[in-house]
Structures are given as structure tokens and as C-alpha cells.
């Protein structure tokens, strides 16, 4: 029996990717400059090579439309969409879990009644997606997409199945740490956030070019949920807590950097 895939010769080994990840992080630490997180130009994630802007983002003051954000409401989202475990005829396979937390702005004010969308792999690390060719089983009872609105205090809550790690073709033997994709809107356009939430203590963190594209370790920590026994429910589901802070411009008056404004 030989079911081990033969490595494609053009794929770099993990050691080479890890060395580049470490070198970039060391360089960023040494120059001490604050920079956008994640880095847009990040060679260890191969697909970013032709897809990152080469010029700096151009600062401009947000105009009227950019000081607002789209509104969503009860007519947009069915409360059942917050439960990713009820889409099929039976129970999905895997560790049932709750993920919940609070969405605030940078001043700690809750982002109320706003849309949160999630999508994720199943317990075996497989997405219900035609481009996912990982030969792990699909689960007929799990599609892995959900939505909810935050409540009046900014809290969101989903019931789901803990996703598995999965391989990808960035380099040889590349594996993504288990994660849930999150999409959020704030109260202004520039608070739009699409990110990924990870689980505490995942041994794949150090090896993953996507997580490590955030080169400040303190910023990476912000993407890791914590186990929360108060969210765990008796004989039913484990609980994780993950709070989200939406940046954006509200109330932030920047230095004028020498020009006469």
C-alpha cells in the first residue's frame, strides 16, 4: 500500500518557508516600525506575489459615505443561521462547540445589531467547495456557513463543529491550523473586517504563513480564541470566547506629518 502523495518538485519544503517567516519577522522587529498588519507583500504565502499593491496605501479623510456602513437587520438574517449544526437531517460529526464574543470599536463601544458571517471546514478539514480537493470526507450534515447579528451589547454567538486542520499547496506538507473565517461590518465603511479565528495552542501556528503574515506576535494573539468554561454547556458543547475590535477612523485625528492642513 502506498497512498502517500509524491511531492511536487516545485514546492518548497516547510524548513525554507519557516526560515523566510522568521527572517521577515526578525527584520520587522529590528526596524521597530509600526506597519499594517498583516503585511500585504508576504512572499512565504506564494499566491500573494502578484496580488499585493507595490505602492503604499494612500491616506485620505473618509467622506460622508465612508463614515457610515451598510445596515443589516432581522429581515436579513434568520436566527437559525447562527446554528451551523442543524442544516442536515442528522447531527454533524465532530466536536460540537460554541463560539461567542463581543464586537466593539477601538474605544470599546459595542457594535450593535451588525452582521457577522462565518465559514469553515468540517471536522475532517474539508470545505464544501468545488475547489477543495483534500481527500477528507464531506459531512452530509455540515455545510459550514453561518450568519448572525450582534445583539444590543455587541455580542455574537454561533453553535458549530470544531473545524479540522487542512493541507494546502503553498509549499510541501503545508497545513493550515484549524480556523473559522469571520466577516464583520462596523458602524463605518473602513471598519470592514475579514479575518480568521484560531484555537488556543495549535501546534501549526509557527508554521503557517497566513497567520505569520501578521508579524507582530501581540497582534497574532488577537486572532486566537480562548477556551471559556462558562460558555461550555453541560453534556452538550465546549465553549470558546473570541472578542473582536474593529479599527477604522472614528474619532482618530492623525498627525499632519508636516504638511499645512
Amino acid at each position, binding site marked *: 500500500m502506498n497512498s502517500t502523495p509524491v511531492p511536487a518538485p516545485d514546492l518548497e519544503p516547510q524548513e525554507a518557508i519557516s526560515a523566510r517567516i522568521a527572517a521577515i519577522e526578525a527584520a520587522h522587529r529590528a526596524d521597530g516600525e509600526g506597519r499594517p*498588519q*498583516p*503585511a500585504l507583500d*508576504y512572499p512565504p*504565502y*506564494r*499566491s*500573494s*506575489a*502578484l*496580488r*499585493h*499593491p507595490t*505602492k*503604499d496605501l*494612500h*491616506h*485620505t*479623510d*473618509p467622506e*460622508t*459615505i465612508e463614515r*457610515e456602513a451598510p*445596515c*443589516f*437587520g432581522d*429581515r*436579513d438574517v434568520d436566527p437559525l443561521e447562527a446554528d451551523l449544526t442543524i442544516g442536515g437531517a442528522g447531527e454533524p460529526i465532530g466536536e460540537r462547540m460554541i463560539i461567542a464574543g463581543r464586537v466593539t470599536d*477601538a474605544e470599546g463601544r459595542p457594535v450593535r445589531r451588525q452582521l457577522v458571517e*462565518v*465559514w469553515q471546514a468540517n471536522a475532517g478539514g474539508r*470545505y464544501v*467547495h468545488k*475547489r*477543495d480537493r483534500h481527500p477528507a470526507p464531506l459531512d452530509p450534515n455540515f*455545510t459550514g*456557513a453561518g450568519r448572525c447579528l450582534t445583539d444590543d451589547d455587541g455580542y455574537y454567538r454561533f453553535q458549530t463543529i470544531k473545524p479540522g486542520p487542512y493541507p494546502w499547496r503553498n509549499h510541501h506538507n503545508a497545513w493550515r491550523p484549524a480556523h473559522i*473565517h469571520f466577516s464583520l461590518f462596523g458602524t463605518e*465603511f*473602513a471598519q*470592514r*473586517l*475579514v*479575518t480568521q479565528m484560531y484555537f488556543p495552542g495549535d501546534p501549526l501556528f509557527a508554521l503557517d504563513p*497566513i497567520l505569520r*503574515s*501578521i508579524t507582530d506576535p501581540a*497582534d497574532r494573539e*488577537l*486572532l486566537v480564541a480562548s477556551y471559556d468554561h462558562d460558555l461550555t454547556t453541560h453534556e452538550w458543547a465546549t465553549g470558546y470566547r473570541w472578542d*473582536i*475590535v*474593529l*479599527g*477604522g*477612523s472614528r474619532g*482618530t*485625528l*492623525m498627525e499632519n506629518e508636516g504638511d499645512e*492642513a
Partner: protein
Amino acid sequence: MRATPGQTVGPFFHYGLPYDGDRDLVPPGSVGAVRFGGRVLDGTGAGLQDALVEIWQARPDGTVPREPGSLRRDGWTFTGFGRASTGRDGRYAFSTLEPGPTEPGGAAFFAVTVFARGLMDRLFTRAYLPDDAAALAADPLLSSLPEERRSTLVARRDARGLTFDIRLQGADETVFLDLSGYRRP
């Protein structure tokens, strides 16, 4: 508080983010409907088949929509928000109304967000309507840009509506925006 960092939308967003009616802010062919679209291109000029474009815009009279309903469109509420994933050739297209200027004499634009596999974080830009030369000339953003980069932010008008290509990289790279604070009090 430190802002939660972004991450790439990845390759598997197609069953998480698109939804029925996502790109039709108004029904195609209805009164006032225009096509707003173009291609999302990489550094070699190739179209991205795994990008997602969102628009957020004022109504034709310049007012800002404050109504829900983007996810379950009823055919008559204009919410100002739309979402379109690109096709195999990198094309995206919305059916929408043309935004008006939000201030008298201002330049009208769509606020645009771009996501893609291989793009580490979302990018913001603007697609200005091309018609009001005086408003474009007076626009604070456009006038802060070198001449040759301004045109990357102005949609082209053609028979079907407005065309706006988004170039992530290269000689005519689109201007992407940092909207993280105010310099004018």
C-alpha cells in the same frame, strides 16, 4: 484597544459570502439601473477568478441609505450595499443606481472593498463617476494624487454603464486607500 488584524479571505469563501441577489442592488433592467463592473487583475494583467468586490454607495440624490435588506432583497428597497464574486476571467458586475454627490458640488463615487485569495487583507478604493469635471478637479483625494494615478479611480462610461477595472499591482496599479483617521479636523 488594539484592532483585530485582518486575514486573507482565502479560496473557499464562495459558500460563505455570496448570496442570491448579492450583486443586484436593483433588479437588472429596472428604471435607472446601470451595470457597474470590470475586472480584478493581478500584476501580470491576468483576471482573478477568486476575488470578491463589495460596493457601498449613496442614492442618486446623494443621501445615504440606512435601510436593511441587502441579504434578502425585496426588489424595491435600495440598501446601497452589494457584493459580487469574480468569474473565471476576473469579471465582476453589479446592477445598481448611480450614486449622487453626498455634498453639493462634490464628486460622486462608489466606495469599493476588494478581497481575494492571495490578498492578505482587504483593500479599500473609490470608483468615481467620470462626468462632472469640475467636481473631480476639486476632489480632495483626486487632487492629492499625481496626474497619472488619478485615472485609476475614475470609472469609464460605456454603452452598458460604468466600467471600473481594479489592478492589484503593476504600472497602472489602482490607488488603494488608508481610511484609518482624519487629518482635516
